[in-house]
């Protein structure tokens, strides 16, 4: 009897210890306005499950007041850490101060805030200029010194991805005098506009014969443009090289079919590095860098695009 009681108490004790070991982390997401964001949510949940983290998820439905309220509730609940993808940059000071006072580390995902960096542990994000640079450097090595006239499909005019990805690409090709951007127009990040603008490029450039490569600020525009190139009777991927950014599932289908040449990944896995940083912080108080840049990985036709498509198609893009 006594033995059984002892065993039971040991079991209860170890169970208690197990629960205490599992971390509870709150994640306040902006919403699900785009495929990429939906994928970010899915990946975050998967990452948490793999690490045995108890993730509390809150969708702010694009509204900052919901997001602030969610953060306050996380603090009241006493979570171990908070991840937040802030919907706007302003207005976070007081709630971040509350988190700091409660000694709950906060990690920003994908977007920044204008508060003092002391108020959050770190920010995980991608460098948009770097993405453009990777695309540009790929083109330099792909054409290998030959003369190349490039057309560019820009993102929404004035948006930060459009400005930074253009700047980065120009930096990437800066050393190569053989490469020249001859036409550059906005395709608004959409498939239909990408196709329309590409059609006008093809007409203006001798039916496409004078174009050597296309650089699109996102994959969706590239997919639209590929359609336009095919309709003009040319072979995308051979007659005109296609390089774009984001690495959404559809571009991998195009890569697998040989119709696109390269894409630079904007990874939806911002949570992985965030969880790593938190783990190190909890283990021995290691302070991470204030900005953790995610890898901008380049994918070409040689990188098993069919397999990459299979891996991504269920993430919610």
């Amino acid at each position, binding site marked *: 009897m006594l033995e059984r009681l002892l065993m039971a108490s040991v079991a209860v004790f170890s169970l208690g210890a197990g629960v205490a070991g599992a971390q509870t982390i*709150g994640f306040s997401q902006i919403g699900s306005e785009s495929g990429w964001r939906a994928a970010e949510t899915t990946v975050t949940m998967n990452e948490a499950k793999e690490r045995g983290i*108890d*993730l*509390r*998820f*809150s*969708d*702010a*439905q694009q*509204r*900052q*007041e*919901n997001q*602030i*309220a*969610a953060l*306050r*509730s*996380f*603090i*009241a*609940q*006493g979570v171990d850490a908070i991840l937040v993808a802030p919907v*706007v*940059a*302003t*207005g976070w*000071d*007081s709630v971040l101060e*509350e988190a700091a006072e*409660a000694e709950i580390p906060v990690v920003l995902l994908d977007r920044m805030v*204008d508060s003092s960096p002391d108020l959050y542990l770190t920010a995980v994000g991608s460098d948009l200029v770097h993405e453009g640079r990777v695309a540009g450097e790929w083109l330099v090595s792909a054409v290998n010194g030959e003369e190349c006239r490039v057309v560019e499909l820009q993102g929404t005019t004035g948006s930060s991805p459009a400005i930074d990805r253009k700047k980065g690409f120009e930096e990437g090709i800066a050393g190569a005098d053989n490469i020249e951007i001859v036409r550059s127009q906005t395709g608004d990040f959409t498939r239909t506009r990408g196709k329309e603008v590409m059609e006008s490029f093809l007409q203006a450039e001798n039916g496409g014969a004078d174009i050597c490569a296309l650089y699109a600020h996102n994959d969706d525009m590239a997919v639209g443009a590929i359609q336009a190139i095919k309709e003009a009777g040319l072979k995308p991927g051979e007659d005109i090289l296609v390089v774009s950014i984001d690495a959404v599932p559809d571009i991998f289908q195009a890569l697998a079919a040989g119709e696109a040449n390269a894409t630079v990944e904007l990874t939806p896995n911002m949570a992985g590095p965030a969880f790593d940083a938190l783990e190190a912080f909890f283990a021995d108080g290691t302070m991470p860098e204030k900005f953790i840049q995610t890898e901008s990985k380049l994918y070409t036709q040689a990188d098993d695009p069919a397999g990459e498509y299979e891996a991504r198609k269920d993430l919610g893009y």
Partner: protein
Amino acid sequence: MNIRALPLYATIAIFLLAYLVCYLQFPAMLSTRVIGNLLTDNAYLGIVAVGMTVVIISGGIDLSVGSVIAFSGVFIAVLLRETGLHPLAVFALLLAITTLFGAAMGGMIHLLAMPPFIVTLAGMFLARGAGYMLTIDSVPIDHAFYETMQRAYYLMPGKGRLTLLGGTMVASVILGMILLHRTKFGTNVYALGGGEATARLMGVAVGRTTVLIYAFSGLMAGLAGIVFSVYTSAGYPLATVGVELNAIAAVVIGGTLLTGGSGYMFGTLIGVLTMGLIQTYIVFDGTLSSWWTKIVIGALLLMFILLQKGLLRLRLSH
């Protein structure tokens, strides 16, 4: 027992029951932190709902308030950025504008004998458009006085914060209670909600009362706008879309009859807190989609409308 007060009792019972359920599942829900958060996070909604309660009891509706909150935020942010005025001066100016705006809508409703729905719908577009005219960006407010306001709180035992914003909401509710239940104006509002013709026969100055009702709603929307701008320390023309509908829902969940003539200001406070409680529960749970907030509020609304219909029938059969 007073049959009119039944919806209020039902509201309070549902709130307490819901809180008990939350507490049993998450003991941390019964902390001063959560209570402080409920007051702070719903301050702007509570204040705007005070004005909405008066409007609905009078048998009207005010759809403009959400847009007025957004306009207020943008107005404050832009004025603080462009001029050297002190925030308090800007607040006074803003409250004058929103009160006049409400009064003008009330005047049109009375003079042109137009349905409040149409007039305030026009007001909704007008205020939203005016916000966009001022700016299309989110304008941050960076002023020492704003920081003072954000840091003004009383630390309750258990680290909960009774903030200036939460306090402002409670004060607004008390003000609304006095106005509605203890003044001549309040009696007139109830009389108007019972029917315009009877109110006229009772000697209520219908025109003046209507103008005052919408002016009060405008004033409260302006105050909610100030509170919201302190809450987010920014002005954004796209903010608080649809908040007028949340306010109406809070009023109805608070036990006020949508057709007017019956209701209590205190019920509205409970209605707002109930909505906040649902949102808090969903965040605490962390696995439910946050759209469940809307589903539960929809179910509660439906329940209260059925309850009111039942009570109406009960009263008629007596």
